[in-house]
């Protein structure tokens, strides 16, 4: 039997992901540096140079827009294509992101999640990938580096089975730069799990094909409808692939939802990404104290697993959605999706939104415990900014009040 595990290593998240990506044998990698993503493409570059990843065309491009564009061309020409980015780089790709999904190209992209400016901030939150919520990309969020590694073979399998691009999101710095114990998948096992790329459409002179025709009002709705239904297929395909993954590698990749401790009528925290680790600690502590608190991790964000969440949360009394991004003027992004998903349940849980960890603000266990105790006591407002520094807010809003045109008025 093929070795499931190549080796267990204490390794930086970025390097681990780069090794997992290399094991997936991408044929074209387009690279542009941006923090905190850089270590991933650096390591892939090294693996290509040393011949550990071959045959692979590693191309240093002039921008993230070009990186995604190059992946589009490579994928349409029948090669497995990969790139990685973060933050502003993801936004700079945005036009090509929508294009890649519209053209049905199974590109895999790692996003080392980072806040969006202004103000410029290089630290982690989820505002970059969540801004691309409607790009037509499947979005997966890793809670730790093991899951980040595991999600990559899964992402290529899913992308190629559905002919849709997949984004694997991992928290910048918190995961990308963290050294953790990771089981790196063996090459033979990955090869068995992920067969060579057989494109659904191909640019080849032997069988000429027009890809990317102009579509007018008479068929555009139909094309979009088909894109929607194909996207939704991930909800059935992904659990099947996850089961195959578990059989092949001996680990559950938690591809849709993470492990959950749920108490009927209790409070459940729903979150994505690395904060799940701290949350698990906090929840364990509160449960030991007898508080009815549960935790649910969300790995698959797009398509939104509404049915799985309805099943998981039907008996919860209250759901606290811990959000790592803000929709200004609305509040929580995931909360809105969840509210829509739970709508119509006979006795739907209350939804509370907690905005936390923006731009790299540490999310401490103490703060989480305090917030969850408030939540179980029914003291949580609908929208809470966790650990908001009131004196900073007052100082800044005070400056605004002293604007010259207002001075005379008071």
């Amino acid at each position, binding site marked *: 039997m093929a070795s499931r595990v190549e080796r267990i290593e204490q390794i930086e998240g970025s390097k681990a992901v780069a090794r997992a990506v290399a094991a997936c044998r991408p*044929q*074209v990698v*387009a690279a542009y540096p941006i923090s905190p993503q850089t270590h991933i493409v650096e390591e892939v570059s090294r693996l290509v140079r040393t011949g550990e990843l071959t*045959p*692979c*065309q590693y*191309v*240093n*491009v*002039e*921008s993230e*827009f*070009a990186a995604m*564009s*190059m*992946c*589009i*061309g*490579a*994928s*349409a*020409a*029948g*090669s497995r*294509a990969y790139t990685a980015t973060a933050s502003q780089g993801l936004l700079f790709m945005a*036009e*090509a992101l929508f*294009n890649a999904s519209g*053209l049905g190209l199974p590109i895999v992209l790692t996003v080392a999640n980072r806040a969006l400016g202004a103000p410029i901030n290089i630290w982690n939150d989820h505002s970059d990938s969540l801004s691309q919520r409607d790009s037509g990309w499947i979005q997966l969020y890793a809670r730790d580096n093991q899951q980040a590694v595991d999600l990559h073979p899964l992402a290529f399998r899913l992308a190629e089975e559905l002919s849709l691009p997949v984004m694997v999101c991992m928290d910048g710095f918190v995961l990308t730069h963290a050294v953790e114990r990771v089981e790196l998948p063996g090459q033979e096992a990955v090869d068995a799990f992920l067969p060579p790329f057989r494109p659904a459409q191909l*640019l*080849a*002179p032997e*069988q*000429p*094909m*027009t*890809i*990317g*025709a*102009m*579509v*007018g009002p008479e*068929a555009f709705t139909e094309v979009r409808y088909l894109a929607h239904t194909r996207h939704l297929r991930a909800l059935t395909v992904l659990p099947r692939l996850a089961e195959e993954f578990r059989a092949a590698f001996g680990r559950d990749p938690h591809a849709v939802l993470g492990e959950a401790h749920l108490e009927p009528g209790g409070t459940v925290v729903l979150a994505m990404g690395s904060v799940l680790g701290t949350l698990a600690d906090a929840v364990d502590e509160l449960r030991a104290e007898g508080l009815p608190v549960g935790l649910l991790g969300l790995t698959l964000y797009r398509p939104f697993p509404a049915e799985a969440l309805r099943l998981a949360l039907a008996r919860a009394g209250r759901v606290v959605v811990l959000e790592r991004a803000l929709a200004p003027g609305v509040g929580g992004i995931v909360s809105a999706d969840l509210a829509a998903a739970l709508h119509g349940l006979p006795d739907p849980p209350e939804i509370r939104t907690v905005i936390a960890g923006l731009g790299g603000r540490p999310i401490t266990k103490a703060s989480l415990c305090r917030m969850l105790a408030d939540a179980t006591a029914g003291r949580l407002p609908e929208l809470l900014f966790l650990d908001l520094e009131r004196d900073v807010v007052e100082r800044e809003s005070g400056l605004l009040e002293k604007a010259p045109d207002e001075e005379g008025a008071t």
Partner: protein
Amino acid sequence: MTGTRFYQVGSYAAGNRLLDPASRAEQSRAGRPNSLTMGHRACRGCGEALAARYVLDAAERATGGRIVTVNATGCLEVFSTPYPESAWRLPWLHSLFGNAPAVAAGVAAALRAQGRTEVRVIGQGGDGGTVDIGFGCLSGMFERNDDVLYVCYDNQAYMNTGVQRSGATPPAARTATTLPVGGDPGAPFGQGKDLPRIALAHGIPYVATATVAGLRDLEAKAARAMDLHGARYLHVLSPCPLGWGTGSGEAVRIARLAVESGVFPVFEAVDGEITGVERIRRPVPVEEYLRPQRRYAHLFKPEPRPDVIARIQQAADRNIVRYHLLDPDEQAAQGS
């Protein structure tokens, strides 16, 4: 007998019948590939449709039909692929407006990774997609020396969106965003975005300019480009009857006047060094080129603007000197 129709009227390409078969124009062959088929939706007399057909047919012949094409957003893309129809008989991909060079480079990288080195890649776009929004991607493609021939069909404005100024719009030309009103009518005089020279500065293996007036020359350059590897750039002046305000049968004549006046130098360069120019056979003042085009009508009436025409003449004269466009013998004869 095939269904190919072949016309040659009043063009320097005439005389095929006197040539040996190997030297004949690709478009004169009954078995030409017809890469871009009849029945597409280009305007009557479109210079770009003409140029694209000649370039791709010649390239197909040069490569034995082993070509993949990538197209930027623009007229060529819109008029050739209204779903569910397509006028393309070769593998063709459209992605976005500003990324055709990068997408083409991606195709080239994929083919290299697959070991399919016999399949060649051509990227194409208009002047807007090339000199403006796609400029960064094009420069990156040049700098990396990606194995792509990129062809710019230059009609000197954003014609697909209704004739707005582009970075390739010449001074004084009227567009929908450089109207002939106010003190300085038309597009302003500036440094100009001379992409063939910018391409030269990248030192890529092949740079050439051509026009739809020299269709045999255009074919030869497309074929020569396919004999080379690495980043190659072909800049084709492709008059737009609608945008330039000329008759639909005038594209070739106007393009020839652009060459003969020195407004558009036709040259060829290898590895950043100019290796050949098309000499001007019958030098004409720029006025002859400008007058038939409604986009320059404001230079002639109601108030004639000899000052503006003189500035355009200066630029043409500079081209003539820079590229040695006049035959030295002819110049000597004229001088005597």
